[in-house]
């Protein structure tokens, strides 16, 4: 069984990457506050921008069209993986779909696609994100001061947006990669509206058919596909209508002879939003968003007529309304949001295993989550400015009296010490009513979502940060250092085991521990913005611990994603009009994990004796990727380019898990134990072709 389920993983492949934002940033005020007018921003296809920008303003921004120059994994560029190269955000490595910001769990981050929450943003068990880069405009990351318009999570906020500019001619661009390809169609519908349509799919099954696994009795199949549609209408110069739709699905299946088993893991994401922006005066505008988000996953196995399934699902219907206006030198933001959640937490179903008929289904949980907020951006004097915000949020569970609510004050103060040098202090209180239950520990789609309820309290976090930011040489260089401290309350640890879920009555509340967490650290960043040679180095020294009364007698232990060191270096070099070279190096302390320290035999089976919870470390993760782009053609209407990438260039075999091999030889009366790390691959070369016409 373990082999059967695990075969899911062994056949899948990995991937990295990312990009960034506009320059001059450093002392731009936060654009969320100051952009009051609707403006068309023409983005030329090959503008020479930076890969990352804006970190000095508290909002890291990655421009999708700038990501092309970075190394690719099997030909694919990925914005979410690129975000992991920025300060305070961990490099997750292979087989890890999570995004970890400042020592928090993956489920503590709000990941949005056009303002719609996405509950599992990964394809292929984490090797690709669901975001098709060709359809994107940019990605923004907030991790210090979180504007009160963003609620419902304890850590960072990531918002990825689709292209939203009108186009004046029909064009097609695409990318043909080693295991997946995609194409985007851009079509004008008159002068005031346009649409974009993208599709992406993998043909990895062709490769899986060719790969000879160690075990010929396992037949894996995997496929993912996703589709994006964006419609833009600008009926007047002061209004804009956006319709965005996304649908993506992953299916992994395996057949195994000896267990007569077939089954697999599947998950789907869907997000639809309708946004209307209206400039109401020269100093005010409003934006309304209605959306629907859907995510489900299911792990299932069929053992010759005995079926075991673990489905879970979450479905949101939401609305967000915001209004921005200016009075004198003060910029205001106010709004409301509401989400109607339908949640079916993971629950086991069996058929013909211990019962003749399928087991009973639990009831769906329905909750109402809402928020109202206001924020002011004040300039106190020439040197001091501040953002002060207040959010009130709550969560009500239908059919019960369970009601959690509270205020969430947010504050940011900027002190401009000298020109291009500033200190920024931020404090936020954040509340989370939709919790992620981490089953796998590494962000796999077996993790699921569970709303706050009578036995599962709402989560809360206090966050403090203090940073120093400086730019020099006309903003050609930027340097920053920022410390952070977070206190997390009502954290969850899942202690359920797979077999316990099917051989007895399963009540999820009985398998959740509650505790607290603390994270702190310091982030450094040195960045070169301009010139033929540019890039950045980011380093984070961090500590993240948890303390649960029911785990290890209340002793504090390292969070799974506790990383003492996390280093990312990105460089980019434009040799000439034809050639661009780039490289990435990442180094990260290994994840904490609960290590088997001893082994014993009962019933002729070898059983692990585990050491302290998260008391051991995986070996350090490090990797270098190299990339070269060769432009065959590049003008305003047509482009074609070949990318050569070498992922994990020096063939570091980073272990993804610890495997304990046991061989017992009855005849010789001996037992042999061979624990070793297992990695997926050494180096991975790829070539891909990108085009636009």
């Amino acid at each position, binding site marked *: *069984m*373990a082999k059967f*389920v*695990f075969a899911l993983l*062994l056949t899948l492949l990995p991937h990295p990457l990312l990009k960034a934002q506009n320059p001059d940033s450093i002392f731009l005020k936060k654009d969320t506050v100051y952009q009051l007018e609707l403006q068309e921003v023409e983005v030329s296809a090959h503008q020479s921008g930076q890969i990352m920008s804006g970190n000095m303003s508290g909002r890291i921004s990655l421009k999708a069209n700038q990501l092309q120059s970075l190394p690719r994994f099997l030909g694919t560029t990925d914005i979410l993986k690129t975000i992991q190269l920025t300060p305070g955000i961990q490099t997750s490595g292979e087989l890890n779909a999570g995004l970890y910001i400042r020592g928090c769990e993956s489920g503590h981050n709000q990941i949005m696609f056009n303002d719609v929450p996405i509950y599992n943003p990964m394809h292929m068990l984490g090797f690709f994100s669901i975001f098709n880069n060709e359809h994107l405009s940019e990605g923004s990351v907030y991790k210090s001061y979180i504007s009160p318009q963003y609620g419902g999570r304890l850590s960072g906020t990531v918002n990825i947006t689709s292209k939203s500019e009108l186009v004046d001619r029909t064009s097609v661009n695409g990318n043909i990669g*080693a295991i997946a390809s995609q194409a985007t169609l851009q079509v004008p519908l008159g002068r005031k509206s346009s649409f974009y349509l993208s599709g992406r799919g993998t043909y990895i099954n062709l490769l899986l058919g*060719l*790969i000879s696994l160690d075990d010929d009795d396992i037949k894996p199949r995997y496929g993912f596909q996703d589709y994006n549609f964006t419609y833009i209408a600008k009926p007047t110069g002061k209004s804009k209508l956006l319709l965005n739709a996304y649908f993506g699905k992953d299916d992994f299946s395996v057949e195994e002879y*000896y*267990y*007569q088993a077939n089954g697999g893991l599947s998950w789907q994401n869907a997000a639809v939003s309708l946004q209307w922006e209206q400039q109401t005066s020269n100093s005010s505008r409003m934006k309304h968003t209605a959306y629907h988000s859907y995510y489900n996953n299911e*792990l299932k196995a069929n*053992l010759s*007529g*005995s079926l075991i399934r673990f489905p879970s699902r979450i479905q949101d219907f939401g609305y967000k309304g915001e209004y921005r206006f200016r009075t004198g030198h003060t910029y205001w933001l106010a709004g409301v949001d509401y989400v109607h959640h339908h949640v079916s937490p993971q629950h086991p179903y069996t058929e*013909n*295993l*211990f*019962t*003749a008929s399928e087991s009973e289904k639990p009831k769906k949980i329905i909750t109402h989550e809402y928020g109202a907020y206001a924020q002011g951006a004040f300039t106190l004097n020439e040197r001091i400015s501040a953002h002060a915000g207040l959010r009130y949020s709550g969560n009500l569970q239908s059919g019960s009296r369970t009601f959690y609510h509270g205020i969430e004050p947010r504050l940011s103060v900027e002190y401009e010490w000298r020109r291009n040098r500033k200190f920024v202090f931020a404090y936020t209180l954040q509340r989370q009513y939709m919790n992620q239950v981490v089953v*796998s520990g590494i962000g796999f789609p*077996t993790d699921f979502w569970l709303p706050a309820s009578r036995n599962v309290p709402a989560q809360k976090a206090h966050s403090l940060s203090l940073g120093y930011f400086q730019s020099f040489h006309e903003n050609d260089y930027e340097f920053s250092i920022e410390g952070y401290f977070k206190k997390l309350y009502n954290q969850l640890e899942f202690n359920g*085991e*797979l*077999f*316990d879920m*099917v*051989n*007895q*009555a399963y009540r999820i509340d009985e398998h959740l521990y509650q505790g607290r967490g603390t994270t702190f650290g310091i982030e450094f960043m040195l960045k070169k913005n301009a010139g033929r040679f540019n890039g950045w180095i980011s380093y984070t020294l961090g500590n993240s611990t948890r303390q649960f009364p029911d785990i290890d007698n209340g002793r504090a232990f390292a969070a799974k994603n506790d990383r003492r060191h996390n280093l990312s270096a990105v460089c980019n070099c434009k040799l000439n009009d034809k050639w661009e070279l780039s490289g990435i190096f990442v180094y990260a302390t290994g994840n904490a994990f609960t290590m088997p*320290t*001893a*082994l*014993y035999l*009962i*019933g*002729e*089976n070898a*059983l*692990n004796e*585990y*050491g302290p919870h998260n008391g*051991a470390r995986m*070996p350090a993760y490090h990797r270098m990727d190299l990339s070269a782009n060769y432009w065959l053609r590049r003008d305003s209407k047509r482009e074609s380019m070949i990318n050569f990438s070498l992922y994990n260039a020096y063939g570091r*075999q980073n*272990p993804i*898990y610890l495997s304990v091999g046991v061989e*017992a030889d*009855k005849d010789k*009366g*001996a037992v*042999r*134990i061979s*624990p070793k*790390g297992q*990695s*997926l*691959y050494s*180096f991975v*070369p790829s070539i891909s072709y990108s085009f636009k016409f």
Partner: protein
Amino acid sequence: MLSAILITLALSGCEPKFDFGGIDFEPQIIVEGWIENDEAAHVILTQSITMDMDTSGTSLADIAIRWAKVTVSDGETEEVLTGRMDKNYFPPFIYRGSRIKGVPGKTYTLKVEYSGRTLSAHTTIPAAIPIDKLEVNKCEDSDTLYQIRLKFRDNPEQTNYYKTFTQIVPEETRFYSAFMGTVSDEILNEGEADIRVNRGMRHTQLEKYTPYFSVNDTVNVKLTQLPEEGFMFWSSYENEIINGRNPLFPSNTNIKSNVEGGKGIWCGYGKTIRKVVIADSIGTPR
């Protein structure tokens, strides 16, 4: 290019070493003990092995504990078990009783004294449950593999726990824990329970494991009713075997034990054994 990719995607063990040296290791005494209705007590004693061992292999002579004093008491009578070599077990050394036979409803205490350490555990033997029927069916997509279903009456008025074991004779010299063979009656059909019996699983088996049976297999199926501490042990035992190396549903919690001062299980079972021969056509239980 494809071939280059395929070559580099080949799975491989990796060089980076795990550090096992930071944790002090003290071998634990492991108990695998049982007493069944109408049978004498059996106890296998071993010690745990550090994970940070030389991979050249550890002799079973180092694992088996041969010089312990093992005492079983039913509250009235006390018996010191006799240790002896027995190649039917692995490692091949077992302590057996003779005078005290298991009686349903009675509580039995185990005491192990070895090397200055004393371990103790208590268990009760629940009632044996008759097997109503064993059904043999061919697997859906195979002409050579068969599965067994077992039917018995569960008392809906009580909380009951069941564990199945199998033994294929003459190849197997003892009963092994049936794969996914531990169940609480909370999830069984009321009245007549109908559960699947998978082949016993063991790491010492050299052939690839399959939960099914083959034609001409003679299978002894043992249905046991066991107390809660036994159910907890076997549930966590099966979790460890199924998921100890599975990152989707990782298992990293220690097996629940009822042995004070050591690890493992001392368990009373109310057992019923039936034999079935897998015939070429749909089998007829004997």
